[in-house]
C-alpha cells in the first residue's frame, strides 16, 4: 500500500513537472534569446544557454525604439478596458442574476450572439463605423472596441459568481436598513472579490495580447500597442530576434504583476460560513 502510494505520488509529481516544463519552455527560450548577443545568435547552434550573455538588446529596445511608447499605450488600453468592463459586467451580471425583467431572455440571446462571429468578419464594418467618428488611430477607439467585445463574456462570468452568493444575504441587509444598491456595495461586492479579480485578470490579458483590431484600427506609432509594436522588429530583409524577445520579456512584466496582485482573491473562498454548512 505505502509502496503504491509513493509510486503514485512520484508519478503525479512527475506528470506535473512535465506539464510545467512544456508550458514554460517557450518562455525560457524567449528569455534565452533575449540575452544572446547578435553575433552568437546563429553561430552557436542550438544551446540551452549562450556562452556569453548580455543585456544589450534590452538597452537598445528601451533607448532606441518606440517600445516604451507602445508599452505605455498597452498599459492604458488594457487597464482601462479591464476596469470599464469589470464595472459594466458586475452591474449587468448582478441584474441578470437577481432580477426578472421584460426582455431578459432576448438580452441574453443577443449577448450570446455577439460571441458567435469570427472577429475577422467584423473588422471592416467596425473600421467603417469608427473612421467617421475619428476613433481610428486612437486609444479611445481601441478601448471602446475591446470593451464591447469583452462585456458579454465578462457579464456571464460575473453572473455565475453572483449566482453563487445566496440571495438571503442582501435581503437580510435590506431588512437591516440598506438600500438595494448599498446591500450590493457593502455585502455582495466584497464577497465577489474573487470573481472580480478573475474578470479583471481575464479581460486585462485579453486586451493586452489583442493583435487583430490593434493592427487594423491603428496605423501610426503614436497609438500602437505593444503586440503591433513587436511586428516592427520584423523588417523587409531581416528579423531582429534579440530585440523582439527582449521586448517580449518586458511585455510579460505587467501581466505577471497584475496576477501577483489579484492572486490573493483568486484563491480565497470568501463565502464560507455565510449560510448553513
Amino acid at each position: 500500500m505505502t509502496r503504491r502510494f509513493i509510486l503514485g505520488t512520484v508519478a503525479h509529481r512527475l506528470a506535473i513537472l512535465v506539464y510545467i516544463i512544456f508550458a514554460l519552455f517557450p518562455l525560457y527560450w524567449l528569455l534565452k534569446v533575449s540575452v544572446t548577443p547578435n553575433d552568437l545568435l546563429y553561430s552557436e547552434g542550438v544551446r540551452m544557454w549562450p556562452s556569453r550573455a548580455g543585456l544589450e538588446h534590452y538597452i537598445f529596445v528601451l533607448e532606441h525604439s518606440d517600445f516604451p511608447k507602445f508599452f505605455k499605450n498597452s498599459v492604458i488600453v488594457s487597464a482601462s478596458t479591464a476596469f470599464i468592463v469589470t464595472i459594466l459586467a458586475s452591474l449587468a451580471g448582478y441584474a441578470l442574476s437577481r432580477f426578472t425583467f421584460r426582455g431578459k431572455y432576448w438580452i441574453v440571446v443577443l449577448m450570446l450572439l455577439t460571441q458567435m462571429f469570427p472577429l475577422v468578419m467584423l473588422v471592416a464594418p467596425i473600421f467603417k463605423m469608427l473612421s467617421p467618428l475619428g476613433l481610428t488611430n486612437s486609444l479611445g477607439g481601441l478601448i471602446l472596441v475591446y470593451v464591447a467585445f469583452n462585456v458579454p463574456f465578462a457579464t456571464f462570468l460575473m453572473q455565475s459568481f453572483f449566482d453563487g452568493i445566496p440571495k438571503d444575504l442582501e435581503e437580510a441587509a435590506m431588512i437591516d436598513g440598506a438600500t438595494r444598491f448599498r446591500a450590493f456595495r457593502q455585502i455582495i461586492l466584497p464577497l465577489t472579490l474573487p470573481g472580480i479579480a478573475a474578470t479583471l485578470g481575464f479581460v486585462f490579458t485579453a486586451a493586452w495580447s489583442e493583435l487583430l483590431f490593434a493592427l487594423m484600427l491603428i496605423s501610426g506609432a503614436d497609438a500602437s500597442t505593444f503586440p503591433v509594436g513587436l511586428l516592427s522588429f520584423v523588417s523587409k530583409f531581416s528579423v531582429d530576434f534579440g530585440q523582439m524577445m527582449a521586448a517580449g520579456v518586458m511585455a510579460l512584466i505587467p501581466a505577471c504583476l497584475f496576477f501577483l496582485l489579484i492572486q490573493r482573491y483568486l484563491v480565497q473562498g470568501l463565502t464560507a460560513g455565510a449560510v448553513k454548512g
Partner: protein
Amino acid sequence: MASIDITDIRKNYGAIPVLHGVDLTIRDGEFVVLVGPSGCGKSTLLRMIAGLEDITAGEIQIGGIRVNDLQPKDRDIAMVFQSYALYPHMTVAGNMSYSLRLRRAAKQVIAGKVASAAAILGLDTLLERRPRALSGGQRQRVAMGRAIVRAPKAFLFDEPLSNLDARLRETMRGEIKRLHQSLGATSIYVTHDQIEAMTLADRIVAMNAGLVQQVGSPLDLYDRPANLFVAGFIGSPAMNMLGGTYRAADAAFVAHDNSVVPLGRAYGCADGAAVTLGIRPEHVVVGGAGGHVTAPVDLVEPTGFGTILHLRALGTDLKAFTLERKTAQVGETTSVALPPDRLHLFDAAGSRLS
C-alpha cells in the same frame, strides 16, 4: 412594538395564484405562528410582510401605517432567515451592529447594544469571530442577535430552526420562547413543524394551499380543529380518520365495516350523510370494559415515552397511544372504546360538524 393588520392579501406568481386572500390581525406583543405544509404560502406571506415580495392585491399595515409600497428598510422590522444569512466578511459584532451602523448610531450606543444582546444570547466571547468559525447553533444565535440589537416593530422568523439538529432545535425553541417573554416583541414565526407551532405560539395560523384554514390558540386547534386539514396536521401521532355515514335515529356513526360508534349526541347532519370521524390516538381507550368493538393488534411501536398500538378496527388501521408500557401483544384481540366526548365529526367537504 406594533400590531400588524393584513387585509385580503393576495399573491400571484405570473398567472399562478399562491395566496387567495388572507385576513389576519396580529396584536401588539403577540407571538403568532404560521404553520402548514411546504408550498402553502406561509413563507410568501412572511416575505410580503417583510417587503421582500410584491403584494399583488390587498393591504398590509404595520403599527397602523400602510406599508405596501415601503422598502424593507423603511418598515422597521427584523427577520431571522432559515439560512441565517450572516455576512461572512464581518465579525459577529459586525454582523450584529450592521443595522445600527446604517442608522448612524453613536459608537458607544452600538457597543452597548451589541454587548447586551451578546450577553442575552451567550455570545460574549465570540464577538470577534467570523461566521465560518461558528457552529450551527452559534450562527443561529448571531442571526437572532442581529434582530434584537435594535428594537424593531416586529420580529419575523422564517423557519429559523430547521437547519439545526433535533436536540439543538429543542434548546433553541425554549430560548426563543424565553426571549419573547422577556422582550414582549410582536413576532411572526413560520414553520412546518407543528410541535414548534404548538409550543411557541400565542395563536396559530394554520395554512394550506394559499388559504388560512384556522386561527386560534394552540389548544383550540388541537381540541376543536375546524376542518380535516387542521385535524390531520396538528398532533403527533396524527389523528385517526374513519370514513362512514351518520345515522340520525340513534346519533351514531356507522363505519364502512358496519360497526357502530355511538356519538353521544345529535349532530347537524342529514341521516345517511357521508362523514369522517376523527379521534386522536391518545383518546382511544384500549382494553377495559365497555368497549365498542374488539380488534386484533397489528403492530406495536414502543416510543419509550409510551406505546403506539395499531389495531385493525372499524375497517381501518386505528392507532391508539397509551402511556403504559405493558400493553397488548401482536395478534392479540383487545376491546376498543371511543369516548363520545373525544370524537370529532367532519362533513363530506371536510368541515367540522357541531
